[in-house]
C-alpha cells in the first residue's frame, strides 16, 4: 500500500471537518476522491501533506507514519500536493516557480531530467520561462502548478481540483497529462468535483460527504451507482 489514511478526524476550531475517514491508495493507482463543496476534500489533502494536523487518526505513507510530519518534510518523503486554486508564486517567473518546486532536489542531474520531463509534458512552459507566474491564464497556471510539483520527483501526487475553472478541452488535456504522469509510475490521489472526468481516468474512487466516506469502489461501480448519478453526475 502506498498511502493509507486511518480514522482521520480534523477540526477547524469547533467545526468537525473530517469525521473519521478511512481510505488507501495502492502503488501505481489513480484514486479519485469526489464530493460536493465543503465535503472536506481539500482538508483531507492538506492533512496528508502536513499543512493541517488531525485530532485523531493516522496517515501512513509507504509504511511510515507521517501524520505529524510537517509539510516541508512530507515533500522530501515523496508526497506532493498541488493545492486548490494552483497557488502559483505570482511574482516569480515560470522558471523560478519550477525551481521552487525543486527546492528539496539536491541532485543537479535529476533536476535537469525533471525539467526536461515537465517541458515535454507542458511545452508552453518552456517557451514562457521568463514570464511572471501571475500573468499566466488559469489553464497555464494549472499546468505550471503541476509541473512545479513534478519538479520534486514525487512518488505520490495529490491533485486538488485540477479541472476547476477550465474549458472542457483544457480539462481533457489536463486529465490526459495526469494519466501520462501516472503511467510513469507516480501514484495519484485526485480530488474532483468533476466526477465524470475523474471517474473516467481513476482506478478506484471514494465519495466524501460532509466529512464522511459515503461510498467506495472501483471507478466503474461508483460511476454507475444511482446515488452518485443523482448527486454528482447530474442524473440521467
Amino acid at each position, binding site marked *: 500500500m502506498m498511502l493509507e489514511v486511518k480514522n482521520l478526524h480534523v477540526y477547524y476550531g469547533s467545526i468537525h471537518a473530517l469525521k473519521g475517514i478511512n481510505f488507501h491508495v495502492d502503488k501505481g493507482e489513480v484514486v479519485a476522491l469526489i464530493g460536493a463543496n465543503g465535503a472536506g476534500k481539500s482538508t483531507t489533502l492538506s492533512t496528508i501533506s502536513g499543512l493541517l494536523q488531525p485530532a485523531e487518526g493516522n496517515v501512513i505513507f509507504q509504511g511510515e507514519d507521517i501524520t505529524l510530519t510537517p*509539510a516541508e518534510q512530507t515533500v522530501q518523503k515523496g508526497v506532493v500536493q498541488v493545492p486548490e486554486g494552483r497557488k502559483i*508564486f505570482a511574482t516569480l517567473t515560470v*522558471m523560478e516557480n519550477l525551481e*521552487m518546486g525543486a527546492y528539496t532536489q539536491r541532485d543537479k542531474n535529476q533536476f535537469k531530467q525533471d525539467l526536461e520531463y515537465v517541458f515535454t509534458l507542458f511545452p508552453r512552459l518552456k517557451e514562457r520561462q521568463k514570464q511572471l507566474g501571475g500573468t499566466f491564464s488559469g489553464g497555464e497556471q494549472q499546468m505550471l502548478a503541476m509541473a512545479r510539483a513534478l519538479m*520534486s520527483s514525487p512518488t505520490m501526487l495529490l491533485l486538488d481540483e485540477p479541472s476547476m475553472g477550465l474549458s472542457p478541452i483544457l480539462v481533457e488535456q489536463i486529465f490526459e497529462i495526469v494519466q501520462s504522469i501516472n503511467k510513469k509510475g507516480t501514484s495519484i490521489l485526485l480530488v474532483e468535483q468533476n466526477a465524470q472526468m475523474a471517474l473516467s481516468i481513476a482506478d478506484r474512487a471514494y465519495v466524501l460527504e460532509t466529512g464522511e466516506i459515503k461510498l467506495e469502489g472501483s471507478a466503474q461501480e461508483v460511476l454507475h451507482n444511482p446515488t452518485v448519478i443523482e448527486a454528482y453526475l447530474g442524473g440521467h
Partner: protein
Amino acid sequence: MNRFAGTVNLRELLRPVGQMLVFSLASSVVLSLIVIVLALIMDQTVVGETLLARSKVSLLTYTLVNLPQVILDGLTIGFVYAAIALGYTMVYGVLEFINFAHSEIFAVGAFVGVELLIVLQIYGMLEGGSLIGAYTWLIIAILAGMIGAGLLAISVERVAYRPLRGAPRLVPLISAIGVSFFLQDAIRLIESLTTGQFHRIIPTFGNFDERLTFGQIPIGDSVIALGIQVKSIIVIIAAVLMLVGLNYLVNATKVGRAIRAVAQDRATASLMGIDVNRIISLTFLVGGALGGAAGVLYALKFTRIDPFVGFFPGLKAFTAAVLGGIGNLTGALLGGIILGMLETFSGTYMSAFTMGAAGAEYKDIFAFAILILVLIFRPHGLMGENVAQKA
C-alpha cells in the same frame, strides 16, 4: 539554467547600483532646483536683503556654495536610513508585520561595534597602526555589529513574535513595542553596570575624520573649501555594498527565491519543502545584520551613541520604508535617499530662507509632510504594490 546564470547574476548585481545613482542624481537635481529657484525669488525680498546686509552674500550665492556639501551629507545620511529601512521592509515583506524593535536592534549593533573599538583602544590596538590596520579594525567592528544585531533579531523573533504568529495583527505589534523598550533599558542597564555611563563615543583612529578637499570656491572675502569626510565615503561605500549584497541574495540565489516565495504564500512555500520558520529567521538575521552595520556606520559618522540612539534614525528609516513602499527593497532605498536629502536641505537652508525664524530644528517637517502627501495620493508608497494584489 546554469549557462545563463552568469549574465543574469551580473545584471542583478549591478542593478541596485544603477538605481542608487538614478535616485541620488534625481533627488539632488530636484531639490537643488527648488532651492535655487527659491533663492532667486527670495533675493528680491527682505530675506535676501537682510542676508546681504549681514553677511555680504546674496541668498543665491549662499545656496550655491552650500549645495555640494548638502548633497553629499544628504546622501550619506540617506544611505544610513536606507540600510535601516531595508530591515523594516524585509520583515514586512515576509510577515506583513512592522518590527518596531528594529530601531533598538540598530542601537545594539552600534553599541557592539563601538564597545569593541573602545576595548581595542584600551589595549592600544588602534593607535599608531597603519591605515590598513585601522580599516581592518573598522571592518571587524562593523562585522561584529552585524553579527550581534543579526543574532539579536533572530532571538527577538523567536521569543517575542513567533509564539504570536497566529494572533491578530495588533498583538505582535504591541509585543514589538515592548521589546523595543526592553532593549533600550537592557542597553542602559548593561552600560551602567559595566561602564558607568550611558553614552559612548566612538574612538578616533585611522583617517576617518580627515576631509578630502576637491577645490575651493571664493565668495566675497572668504573661501569655502569643498570636500567630503573620509567617513562619509565609508558610509556610502558600505551602504552600496550592503544593498548590492542584499539585492543579489534576494533576487539571484536559491534562499532569495525561498524568501520571496514565503513572502507571497507561506502555506504553498511549505508545500515546496521550504522550512518557513527557517526562512523567517533568516530574514530577521539579514535585516538585523543590515541594521547593525548601519548602527556602527551611524556611530562612525555622528561619533556619540546612547541607549536611545535608535529612536530617531529608526523612526526616519521606518518613514523611509513606508514612503518608498513598505515591503519593496528598492522603495526603501528611494525613501532613505529622499528623506536624508530633505533633512539636510531643510536643515541647511531653512534658517537662511526664513531669516532665522525656523532653524534646523524644524528640518523634519518636510520629510514628514512629504510622507503624509505621498500616503494620501499613493497609499502603498512610491514603489509599493497594492497589498491586496498579493492575496
